[in-house]
């Protein structure tokens, strides 16, 4: 989603993006030319007339589970966005009985919140797990 027209989206896809990945962009490139949608999400830069790097995770019920907003010079970490979606999917599938601690990624242990876990996280989870090996 950007303030560019769908025509510009097409040209960007055709002349550059498709060359990077060897196919068309596999998701819709939305146009928000007057910034109305960006304003609803709170990420429209009124001074620059552009949208900042806002990224929103929306669950299957249409509820916002998380967001991150960066100013233009710094790009996002796509792997981190995917990891967060995977973590939310796991939590949702467990009906909230499991939580993903810092540094969790698929295959790593989850935590089961409850009275028994209070004061005992140190037994279940090590600080080293917060970091990529």
């Amino acid at each position, binding site marked *: *989603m*950007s*303030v*560019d*027209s*769908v*025509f*510009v*989206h*097409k*040209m*960007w*896809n055709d002349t*550059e993006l498709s060359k990077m990945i060897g196919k*068309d962009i596999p*998701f*819709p*490139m*939305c*146009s*928000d*030319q*007057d910034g*109305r*949608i*960006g*304003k*609803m*999400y*709170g*990420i*429209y*830069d*009124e001074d*620059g007339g*552009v*949208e*900042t*790097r*806002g*990224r*929103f*995770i*929306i*669950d*299957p*019920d*249409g*509820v*916002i*589970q*998380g*967001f991150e907003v960066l100013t*233009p010079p710094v*790009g*996002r970490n796509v792997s981190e*966005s995917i990891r967060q*979606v995977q973590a*939310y*999917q796991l939590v949702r599938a467990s009906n909230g009985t499991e939580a993903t601690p810092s540094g969790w990624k698929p295959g790593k242990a989850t935590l089961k919140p409850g009275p028994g876990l209070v004061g005992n996280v140190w037994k279940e989870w090590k600080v080293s797990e917060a970091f990529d090996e």
Partner: protein
Amino acid sequence: MPEEFKPGCKRPELTKKSVSPETTAIDQPEKEEVQTMVKVGKPAPEFSAPAFFEGKFVNVDLSEYRGKWVLLCFYPGDFTFV
């Protein structure tokens, strides 16, 4: 599925709708638009927007993605990095 629209020689007409209630009170002075950040755990603002997708120009409605996880990304402009 998003419906396709045929562009003419002008800009595609915007068919976006906003869920924020229109201020219709006549005796009220026009309120200055204040941008507020969305909240986690709250419904994502609904929108419908023109898009380029799989070689076509289509209208995308966020509500069509109920039942799926959505990663909605805004960025400053085409031909920048994302």
